[in-house]
């Protein structure tokens, strides 16, 4: 009984209030009808009772629905129902008929309320009825016949038991269902949690397999072994991609995929996805057409990594399932108060999707047309993941398709704006009149020609530029003869057919040839080349006179979009050339750059100063970058755990990132440094407060490489064009780097020979490792490759290889140095030789004045103001104090400042004061 009462109470608390209110209302209505019936049959007593009950139930409905007094209301309601039923029993009604209503109580109570409550109520009522009928109470009210007294309770309890048993069975079934559902949900959640947590454990060995294969492939191995290794690597990459998809999906399902919203530039996203599409396309005969609204704000706030992931997924599918025709990616925007809606659509002329398959397209793990697409790889998760990611971002994804003709996938996401300036700008279009010559008939699919026409029209509309499209060569000739055009854009095929004519025209007009990345043709210096896909950004780059190529790494090497004058950067590298290159590449950002040449020096520097970001070379002698980083991370203080440390490495293999992260680094940057990667690292890791967006595009120098160099120099072992690119197209920096390379060559050469002769292989490997990256930064590819070979031989203990190639590497090194020296002379570069300052030119200054200037130098060093230090030191070179000339000391200090070695400059300044004090 106690258990019954407890269950009754528990069930009352858990009952659905809405259902109870409905029940009360229905009972009230029932009682009201009974009242009316009784009134009609002149049973006034019964009518009074049923009328009261109607009101009673209504009051309970209000108690439940409005005041939420569940237990109270329900108890009162059942009390009221009990009173009413007992009245029927005692009153009898018309010929004792009223008692029949008791038979509806068990089923009504158990089905409408709950099992225990209904059973409880039915039993109470039944017992009350029996008490009335079988005790001396009988006769106080209606007197039932003996048959009724004996049989009615029997029937009543039979009905109660039957209803109870049935309802119990239903109750048990529901209980089991609930338990089953809970177990299934739990299991599913556990599975998702497990998979989400397994990310690192699964990816790490997979990355190691891919990385090891890459290292093996770089060795001197037989063709069979190379092919097998390549297959392992290729399969591992596919498996890694599948695992990534599954883990990604599980993360999203487990609610662990968080969006990281940060400011980003849509230009780099577009660059990356186009590169991917072009790589994926390979030499497939399809066009990739890009139509982008150039007025999209350049600073958007969102999860750029996820947005890119979705676009890449759509593009991958489009390219995968399209054998001929084109893939069109279109990116537009609509503006709103909160920012913009970014609209992306990917359209293809591929196989399309049938109506039935469209329904299950976004279902996880399902691939449509599995028989037809058996040859295509994939988990079938990409679209499901993409859709969920878009939904998480507050957007929507849709698809439309015609089977056999193609599909359009599109999504829209709301994004806030960080910088409303358009991401593509053309400085001036005054006096520009453009002729475009494209033979649209060569395109086999009609969609290609129509898309190119729309692309051209959009460029005309958005940039307000005059463009005339010619579809025949004769038309173009007549047009160009009129002399009204300033530029002529044409495609490779059209150019080749009329190469002489274009060559002649190039002397008068700017000719631009658009070509594919495969089967590239060489063009004269005065004709610009642009790689496909040609779109608004490449058009703007041509019109802005920038060097713009989308290479494999997707670099746009000519713009810096922010400066950070308050940021302090520490660069650590044991090789002076690498330091110079890195510092030179960072110069446009106007940051305070400090360089040191060892791990130990980096630790000391971090002890004395807080830096905002540290770039640490991976391989250095004595204390390498990993050791230094681990030491720093173990230093006491929050700052040392949080300061971003970026690994600089010449060994960027797959899985490298994970390895560096485990070692305490926050990210890595491959050498030679690609400027777009450097830009991304700085944008990611420098505190936002230091990043000041530039309002105009900072142009680097005109990138016509090799203007005056002789042919002999050009055909040597150094590719200067490549080297200039690695120097960020900054000629001044490039010449400075070359000069340092030459200046340090004697010392380096001697060091390399010494390590070799002493068979100090560990340090020999460090030296050739540095030679590998510094040579590549100059463009000395052959020397870099040879250095790499020696490095790996040294690491593998194959010293015979080193012995066989030592002479060759020294000879090649000498040749490179000679070549660079000649190149610098050809280009009129001379290092500022310290002037010979005669004693007549020296000015005597007082000790106080000298101390004052040194104090300024020390302050400037502490503020990393290289220009100020150089200027002050330069002045002191022409001075003497206490009868001693300051030239030599302060020439050295000036040089330290130019090489960002502020610590050394500071120490030399202080030492000068101490030594000269008398």
């Amino acid at each position, binding site marked *: 009984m106690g258990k019954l009462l407890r269950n009754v109470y528990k069930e009352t608390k858990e009952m659905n209030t809405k259902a109870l209110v409905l029940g009360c209302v229905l009972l009230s209505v029932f009682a009201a009808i009974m009242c009316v019936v009784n009134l009609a049959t002149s049973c006034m007593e019964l009518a009074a009772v049923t009328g009261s009950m109607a009101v009673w139930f209504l009051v309970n409905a209000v108690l439940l629905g409005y005041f939420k007094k569940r237990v109270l209301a329900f108890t009162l309601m059942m009390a009221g129902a009990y009173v009413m039923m007992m009245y029927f029993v005692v009153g009898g009604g018309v010929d004792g008929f009223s008692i029949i209503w008791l038979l509806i109580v068990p089923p009504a109570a158990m089905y409408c309320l709950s099992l225990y409550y209904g059973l409880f109520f039915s039993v109470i009522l039944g017992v009350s009825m029996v008490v009335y009928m079988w005790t001396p109470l009988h006769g106080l009210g209606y007197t039932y016949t003996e048959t009724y007294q004996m049989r009615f309770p029997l029937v009543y309890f039979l009905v109660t038991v039957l209803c109870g048993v049935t309802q119990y069975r239903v109750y048990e079934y529901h209980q089991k269902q609930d338990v089953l559902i809970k177990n299934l949900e739990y299991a599913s959640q556990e599975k998702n949690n497990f998979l989400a947590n397994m990310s690192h454990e699964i990816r790490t060995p997979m990355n190691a397999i891919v990385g090891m294969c890459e290292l093996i492939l770089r060795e001197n191995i037989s063709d069979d072994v190379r092919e097998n290794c390549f297959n392992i690597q290729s399969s591992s990459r596919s498996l890694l991609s599948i695992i990534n998809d599954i883990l990604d999906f599980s993360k999203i399902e487990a609610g662990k995929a968080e969006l990281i919203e940060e400011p980003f530039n849509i230009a780099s996203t577009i660059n990356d996805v186009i590169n991917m599409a072009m790589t994926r396309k390979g030499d497939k005969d399809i066009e990739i057409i890009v139509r982008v609204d150039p007025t999209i704000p350049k600073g958007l706030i969102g999860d750029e990594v996820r947005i890119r992931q979705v676009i890449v997924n759509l593009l991958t599918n489009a390219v995968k399932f399209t054998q001929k025709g084109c893939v069109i990616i279109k990116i537009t925007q609509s503006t709103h108060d*909160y920012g913009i*809606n970014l609209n992306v659509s990917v359209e293809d002329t591929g196989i399309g999707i049938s109506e039935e398959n469209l329904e299950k397209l976004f279902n996880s793990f399902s691939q449509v047309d599995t028989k037809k697409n058996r040859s295509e790889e994939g988990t079938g998760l990409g679209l499901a993941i993409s859709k969920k990611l878009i939904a998480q*971002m507050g957007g929507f994804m849709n698809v439309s398709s015609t089977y056999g003709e193609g599909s359009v996938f599109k999504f829209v996401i*709301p994004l806030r704006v960080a910088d409303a300036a358009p991401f593509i700008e053309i400085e001036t279009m005054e006096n520009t009149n453009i002729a475009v010559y494209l033979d649209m008939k060569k395109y086999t699919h009609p969609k290609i020609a129509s898309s190119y026409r729309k692309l051209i029209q959009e460029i005309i509309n958005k940039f307000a530029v005059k463009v005339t499209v010619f579809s025949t060569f004769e038309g173009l000739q007549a047009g160009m003869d009129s002399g009204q055009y300033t530029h002529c854009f044409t495609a490779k095929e059209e150019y080749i057919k009329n190469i002489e004519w274009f060559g002649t025209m190039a002397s008068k007009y700017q000719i631009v040839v658009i070509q594919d990345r495969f089967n590239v043709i060489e063009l004269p210096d005065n004709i610009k080349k642009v790689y496909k896909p040609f779109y608004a950004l490449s058009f703007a780059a041509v019109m802005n006179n920038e060097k713009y190529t989308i290479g494999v790494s997707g670099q746009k090497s000519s713009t810096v979009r922010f400066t950070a004058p308050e940021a302090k950067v520490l660069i650590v590298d044991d090789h002076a050339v690498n330091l110079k290159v890195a510092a030179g590449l960072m110069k446009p950002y106007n940051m305070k750059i400090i360089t040191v040449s060892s791990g130990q020096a980096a630790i000391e520097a971090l002890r004395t100063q807080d830096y905002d970001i540290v770039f640490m070379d991976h391989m250095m002698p004595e204390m390498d970058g990993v050791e230094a980083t681990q030491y720093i991370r173990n230093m006491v203080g929050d700052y040392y755990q949080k300061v971003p440390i970026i690994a600089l490495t010449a060994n960027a293999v797959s899985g490298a990132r994970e390895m560096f992260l485990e070692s305490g680094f926050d990210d890595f940057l491959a050498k030679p440094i690609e400027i777009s990667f450097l830009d991304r690292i700085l944008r990611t890791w420098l505190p936002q407060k230091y990043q000041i967006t530039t309002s105009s595009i900072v142009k680097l120098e005109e990138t016509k490489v090799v203007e005056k160099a002789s042919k002999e120099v050009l055909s040597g072992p150094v590719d200067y064009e490549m080297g200039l690119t690695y120097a960020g197209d900054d000629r001044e920096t490039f010449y400075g780097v070359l000069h340092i390379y030459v200046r340090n060559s004697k010392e380096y050469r001697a060091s390399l020979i010494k390590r070799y002769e002493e068979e100090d292989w560990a340090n020999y490997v460090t030296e050739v490792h540095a030679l590998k990256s510094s040579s590549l930064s100059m463009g000395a590819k052959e020397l870099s490759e040879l250095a790499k070979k020696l490095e790996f031989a040294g690491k593998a203990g194959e010293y015979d290889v080193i012995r066989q190639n030592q002479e060759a590497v020294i000879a090649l090194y000498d040749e490179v140095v000679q070549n660079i020296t000649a190149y610098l002379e050809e280009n009129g570069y001379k290092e500022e030789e310290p002037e010979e300052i005669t004693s007549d030119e020296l000015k005597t200054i007082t000790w106080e004045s000298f101390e004052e200037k040194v104090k300024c130098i020390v302050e400037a060093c502490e503020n990393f103001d290289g220009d100020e230090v150089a200027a002050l030191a330069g002045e002191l070179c022409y001075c003497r104090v206490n009868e001693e000339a300051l030239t030599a000391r302060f020439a050295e200090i000036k040089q330290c400042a130019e090489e960002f070695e502020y610590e050394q400059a500071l120490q030399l300044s202080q030492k000068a004061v101490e030594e000269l004090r008398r």
Partner: protein
Amino acid sequence: MKKIWITSDCTCDMSEALLDEYEVEVIHFYITTDHGCFKDMAEMTATNVVEYFENGGTKISTAAPAVSEYTEFFERMLDKYEEIIHIAISSKLSLSYKNAITAAEQFGGRVKVFDSKHLATGMAHQIIRGVELARENKTAEEIVAILESMRDKISTGFIAENADYLYRTGRVNKFIKVVCSALKIHPVLTMKRGDLKLKTIQIGNYEESIIRYVRTELKKPSRIKRDRLFITYSTVSVRVLNIIRKQVGERCPFEKVWETKASATITSNCGANTIGILFVRE
């Protein structure tokens, strides 16, 4: 330049192919969610509305284009046509008619705004008829008069799986919603004198209810114009579509049957699994 042409708004639920075929341009409504504001049909579709609620989205509101947007739209249209007749969703259902009228005042009578007193493809019937008349070089007054005369003959109605979305938009109260869910009641709604009214209910299995709905709607085929029928739906499965196609084919075949998806605006009012057959009576 064409003399007179027809425009409308996206709530006419005509597909892109149909809009291209009849050269009709539409102005878009807006749907506002917890995250942003999206253009109906261009950025957000009926499926997206349903997904949004399934993914835990709590509120959606729809908005007609502002007067300035109508002005811009009419300006653009008047570059191509001398006069336009803009067929708007029923004035009792949206502010779009009023906004369009205000914008049209600036164009010196070259823009006539017509209150369709219908929604969804009930408007499409009028649009297509209007285009046919325009191609016959009828004047604007003649076209408007003919469209007015056919207004009351258009049967615009649909069956909804439940009253959840109708409750969300305030068209029914909570009690009705609960009763409909509990008792598997599927409301059948119709347009009467420009307003959406409950016509009848169907009870029981939804697919069987749809069959009964189609039979009821098409019970007097001799009084139905057989030239065209629209089957308009929010989100239904191919299976359900096949059921309707079969029923229509058996009971009252039409010369042209167009199947179109409802706009997000309409879907956010009627809900998922809502389907209607819209035709013109004799």
